[in-house]
């Protein structure tokens, strides 16, 4: 369960304050996909970073499972990311030096979780890439890399899956595959999925569509 209460974020750019998000309030529930739509620079990525406990709001609160991220120490935040949050990026962000299997098991290894390899293989099977487990990332296509990234994001069964433009770098067929996996993450694994996107096809799989403009919510469509 994720809740944003009156969240604002201001950065300083060349000494001048720039307000990227202003008074954002919304709730995302487990098993649903929430899509954030808007032009580049409207604050989608900043919102996802705040939701994923990678950053703190200038004002307002981000509550993950009822706890404000502000109250968490550096090590609490690390623990939170290890257990509760998974990330998927537009440029896949796989470690080029690790094999596919090692990339997927990495969050478990960092968290010192048991049976990392078995769980990782399980997730690879789910994204239909088990046969590629020994390949290096550069040997995969873009679509395959993003599926590996999704497997990695879900390997530790996080409650919150954050995807920033997950289809932005893919062709239509690969994009569709990735979107169906994201949808399945919510329905099958019960994750709260937050997705930033420009694409109407991507937004179509979401339960809730939030339009952002200049750091403010323009509209919310959905239950």
């Amino acid at each position, binding site marked *: 369960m994720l809740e944003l209460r009156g969240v604002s974020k201001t950065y300083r750019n060349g000494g001048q304050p720039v307000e990227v998000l202003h008074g954002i309030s919304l709730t995302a529930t487990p098993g649903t996909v929430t899509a954030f739509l808007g032009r580049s620079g409207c604050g989608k990525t900043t919102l996802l970073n705040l939701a994923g406990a990678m*950053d703190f709001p200038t004002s307002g609160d981000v509550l993950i499972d009822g706890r404000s991220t502000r109250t968490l120490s550096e090590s609490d935040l690390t623990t939170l990311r290890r257990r509760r949050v998974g990330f998927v990026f537009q440029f896949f962000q796989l470690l080029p030096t690790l094999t596919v299997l090692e990339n997927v098991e990495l969050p478990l290894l*960092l968290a010192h979780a048991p049976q990392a390899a078995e769980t990782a293989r399980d997730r690879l099977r789910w994204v239909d890439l088990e046969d590629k487990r020994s390949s290096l990332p550069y040997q995969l296509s873009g679509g395959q890399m993003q599926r590996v990234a999704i497997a990695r994001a879900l390997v530790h069964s996080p409650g919150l899956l954050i995807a920033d433009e997950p289809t932005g770098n893919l062709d239509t067929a690969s994009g569709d595959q990735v979107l169906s996996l994201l949808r399945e993450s919510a329905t099958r694994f019960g994750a709260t999925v937050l997705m930033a996107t420009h694409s109407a096809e991507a937004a179509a799989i979401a339960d809730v569509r939030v339009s952002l403009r200049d750091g403010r919510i323009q509209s919310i469509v959905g239950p």
Partner: protein
Amino acid sequence: MKLLRTLILRPLRRDLLRTALTILSVALGVAVVVAIDLSGDAATGSFRSSMETLAGKIDLEILANGGIDERVIGRLTALPFDARFSPIVETQAVLEGVGAVPLYGVDLAGAPENAIVPSRTLAERLHLAPGAPLTALIDGRPWNFQVGRLAEAGSAEFLAIDIAAAQQALGRYGKLDRIDVTVSPGEDFARVEQAVRATLPPAYLVEKPGARSDENQRMLRAFRWNLRVLSYISLVVGAFLIYNTISVSVVRRRAEIGILRALGAGRATVLALFLAEALLFGIVGAAIGVALGRLLAGATVRLIAETVNALYTTSRPAPITLTWSEASIGVVTGALVAFASALAPAREAMSVAPTEAMSRGAHEHHARLRWRRGLAWSAVIAVLALAASQAAPLDGYPLGGYAAALLSIAATAMAAPAVVLAVNRATRAIVRRRVVGLLAGRSLTASLSRTSVVVGALSTAIAMMASVGIMVGSFRETVTQWLDVQLRADLYVRPSMPASAGAYPPLAAQVPAILASIPGVAAVDVFHGLEFHYRGERATLGAGDLDIVRRYGRLRFLPGTDRDAVLRSLPGRDRAIVSEPFANRHGIRTGDRLTIPLGGRNVTLAVAGIYYEYSSSQGYVIVDRSTLLRYLPGQPATNAAVYLAPGADAAGVQRQIQLRTSGYGVAVAPNSELRRNAIAVFDRTFAITWALEAVAIVVAMLGAANSLLALVLDRRRELGLLRYLGASAGQVRGMILTEAAFLGVLAALLGLALGFALSLLLVFVVNKQSFGWTIQFHPPGELLAGALLLVWSVTVLAGLYPARVASRLNPMDVIHEE
């Protein structure tokens, strides 16, 4: 120029710390070379006799082994030519507050008997004016003089007294050390020289002035060469780092190069850009290095001068002078090393195709595929190194040995990628258990080309340290064992003058008899040492009671020699034994005949055996006393070894000797003290070697820090991603430190292997060919283990700053950079 500014200079400014580290590495490398060169010049460049400064132009010098009979002066002055013949006696005097200074006995015509003439510089230092009293210790005894005039001789410091007074003080009646000849300009020089030679006994040497200085320089050639070669180690290590820096620069800017090429830049432009970057590092680093070297020289000159004095000949350090040409050579050397090291990566940059804007991953993949080729080259170069090590010395220089050392370093560098991969593969199962180990191992093999260069640089420095450590350790052990067999007497007696190589002050004639008469003394081996000239080189002619040596000593001969029979064969006959360095230097074997000018005659000696000796690379020729005194009657003894009767009280006998010889200026030392002093001289000699090693290690450490920092900066995105995936700051830090530790282990492994190979070259090729002695191989295990642990720890420490940088990266900034 604009391209240089935007593509090269601007990134350098952004990466100020790495730029500074690279420049500092070059600066240190050049500084060491300049310091050794300057201090070597200062410590060994002052052989020109101060008397030459005083006496003005000299045309010829007359010398004789065992001294010149002064009666020849009468015959020379009777020659029908306009020439001046100046007899000279040379020794050293000790002045309170100053120490030993050269003392010359010259013809001070008309001066009072007790007159002394100091050089103006010395007089000013001692605040002496004409008429002032001055007491000088000559041969251990005080002599009172009165300052006459002052001698104008530039910066030289010396004393001159009348020749008769000098002969009296030294007990060398009728003997001269040298005769300086000045021929009037109107005379036919060749005719005068011919007539002078004809007047003198055939064994006398007539040389052009400066010949002795040249002889000294020749004698020190091997010593200075080896020191110079050692000083280049830091520069070699620095070369690896320049290579690394330019490689990083090329890898990082591949995309930019691709764009430049697409926009019409030619290959030559790209090549020039990266070579210019290297030259910039080289020139700036070398300029700083020259200045730093001048400062360092002040500290190293004393160390080198001490070694020259202890092992070769009397020398006083001259002032250090850094000329423009030396400074320019330093800068050009730095620039050339930088240029040469950058050639390969700059050529790689040149080959980037316009369409190519490859990621590091793909580029490094190619590097990984090339490791087999590297390994094959390594094997070829290793074979060449082996071949070079077998070469004979060229003009006395162990060039084959040096070439083999350089080739071994190259072979190791070529094998580095294969070793990195192999070690990584071998440790994969272990490191996989910890995620930081897995990530660190992968990262190092992924950046294989860069990792290999760092490992190459570090391992070269470690190898140098290990090889010199093994060589010095082996040498020390060999010398210690040799001292055990060489120093068998219980007490040693010598004139109480400051000790210096090549100087043999006489022992008062009464002393041997006094020693023999002291209760508890079983035998006294009286030794006569004198410097002699042989085939344009200097060596020592020694004479002792070889029957006593046979009975009490344990002199070790080369294998296959019957020690007893050899020593028995010497007394009363024209037979000699020679030290191993002398034999090697002059290509002498047992049974050969050796002709030595002694006094007025050329004496032919049969070589009865070759013995191990480690105190002089110039070497010794030893005859029995009876033989020496036959050719040089009245030649004074220079020291004595006293063997005690069983059960005698050594301390008591020592006290008795001191008591009974108190008027003769002698020093008595027990065996243990002599041994301690010998080892102290040995350790002092190699102090500078260790200092040079330390600088090489520091340069390598700077390189390790530099490279780790480059790895961190290049992998910002990956490090940021790890934080997104749940890595703590501590885990990121741990990963970089693990990489540093990995680098350290790899470098230690390779460095130790290379170090062993280099130590074999140093011990059995370079030392043997340079100095002529056989060193027994004794690797100092504990010292090596300690040094390796220290280097490894410092490598890990070098990773601290890069680790801190890595753990403080803002993940959001770096992950969205693309």
